[in-house]
């Protein structure tokens, strides 16, 4: 599939350290795609709906979102809710990567339409491994083009 455009990754994560570690490990997994970072839910929404500081800029397509749940202003769940309620953004794949492992939270996110829910392992080897697998997944997954 040589004609496919490379996927841009939007990393919505309020913890800079986490964000950096995720990026590092994605790079280690040979993910060379563009990685854009936002640090709260509102920024993610602004980015997706071309508003606020992203006014006038349409988000790159195809796009995949790595979304943290516990973020200030708007949390990940609210971002997910708004995305899935809007025709323009509802097909964008969402991978939730969070410290929560509460079963109800997991269920709720899948109900809202998230594609994958991953709990961040505290153990760094496992964390690295998890992000590496996400990288592998990203490299093979078919992602719809928003056009």
């Amino acid at each position: 599939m040589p004609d496919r455009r490379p996927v841009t990754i939007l990393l919505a994560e309020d913890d800079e350290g986490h964000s950096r570690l995720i990026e590092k490990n994605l790079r280690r997994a040979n993910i060379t795609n563009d990685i854009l970072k936002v640090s709260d839910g509102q920024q993610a929404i602004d980015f997706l709906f071309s508003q606020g500081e992203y006014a006038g800029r349409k988000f790159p397509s195809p796009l995949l979102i790595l979304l943290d749940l516990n973020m200030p202003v708007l949390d990940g769940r609210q971002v997910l809710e708004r995305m899935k309620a809007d025709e323009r953004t509802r097909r964008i794949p969402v991978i939730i990567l969070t410290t929560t492992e509460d079963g109800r939270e997991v269920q709720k996110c899948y109900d809202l339409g998230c594609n994958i829910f991953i709990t961040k392992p505290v153990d760094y080897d496992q964390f690295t491994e998890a992000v590496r697998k996400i990288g592998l997944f990203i490299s093979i997954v078919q992602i719809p083009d928003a056009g």
Partner: protein
Amino acid sequence: MLEKTSSQKMELPDRAILTMGGLSVVLAGVLAWWILNESQFDRASADYRTARWLILFAFSIVLALFLAFSALSIRANRRTKRLAQEFHKNETRLRAVMDTAVDGMIMINRRGIVQSFNHAAERIFHYSADEILGHSVNMLMPEPYAGEHDGYMERYLRSGDPRIIGIGREVTAKRKDGSIFSIDLAVSEVRHGEEIDFLGIVRDITVRKQMETALLAAREKLEVRVENRTRELMAANEELKNFAYIVSHDLRSPLVNLKGFAGELSQCLESIRPSLERVPQLLGEEEGGKFSAAFEQEIPEALTFINSSVARMDRLISAVLRLSRIGRREFDVQPVNLEDLVNKIFESLTHLVQQRSVQVAVGALPEMMGDPIALEQIFGNLLANSILYLEHGRPGKVEVGAESNGNEYVFHVRDNGRGIAREDMGKIFDIFRRAGRQDVPGEGMGLAYVKTLVLRHGGRIWCESELGSGTTFFVALPKRPKTEEEEG
């Protein structure tokens, strides 16, 4: 005070009158005889004889009639006297009853005029009987009832449709001073021939009314207070549940960084190791030695400590998280067979039981209402502990039993293990606390979970132990656990 009518007296002929009557009859006979004898009749004549017989005959008849009358009147007299006595006795009794009655008794006639008014009624209405006898009972009623009462009575007498006859009810009444108060009133009708009276029995319920009102107010106040307190408690409880969850969740985030960047640091060091290894040679002996020590020992040691501490912190946080989940999980109360449950737990511990050659005894255990998961966790922890903390080199014995005690079952898990020191008894149920020899891995959370679960089940847990010879844990659980709503 009681009756308006004067007491009745029977006017009857007494003995003296009867005696005088008898004497007059005899005297009249004797007189007739004497007159006949003194008369100028020829004693041998037929007329004389006839007259004599007639007089005798008439006298006998009058005498007989008189005797019969006397006998009858004496009998009648006796009977009347007896009746009068009885009547008097009854009346005295009735008065005694009425005057000692706690309730007011008021008799009125068909026109509403008060016929009798007992002591209690005097006390209740503050009228003396003299003031009220012969007056309308309306005096005792406030408006508008006073005005309507005559109408009620008239209607009842005409149509027989009762408003109050035969039914007790609460009404308002009026004292002499005009104050209005509540009474219980029961009215019955008293029919004698064509006559009809009404008896009203009255009880002052002012105090009861006041108490009812006060009670109602107090109850409302209490309800509001209980409601507020419940709401506060529920909010506090909810907050506490969320607190543990949020804390453990938010504490985790920085740990990911600590661990992550410690890992990055290690990797970093590894990646420059070939270059670093050449550095000491360039630095000379003393500085080179320092460099080597830092690079080979101190930095890796620091990283090891960071990693092990982070790992431990993560385990502790997971433990708190688990405890908070236990608090948050909804209980699903259903019948649970404890004997099956305990046997299953022992089956899952078979490996340990065989390894330590533990002798297991399970007594008769009841079936009870409970949350099966919670009960499994409670007994799972206690049984695992009893085996894990056995004394090495002594054949282990674990015994489980239960007793019914009122509305609860008291379970015990008894072992002949190492026991718990007296000074440690207080802390064994606390989180992260572990007692005795630390040769079994764990976070010190097992008994904290157990205690939380037992408490949520509405039960109690305690323990008896002797260091070196064994421990018995007791768990008292209600036969029917309350639901959370009932608790609230």
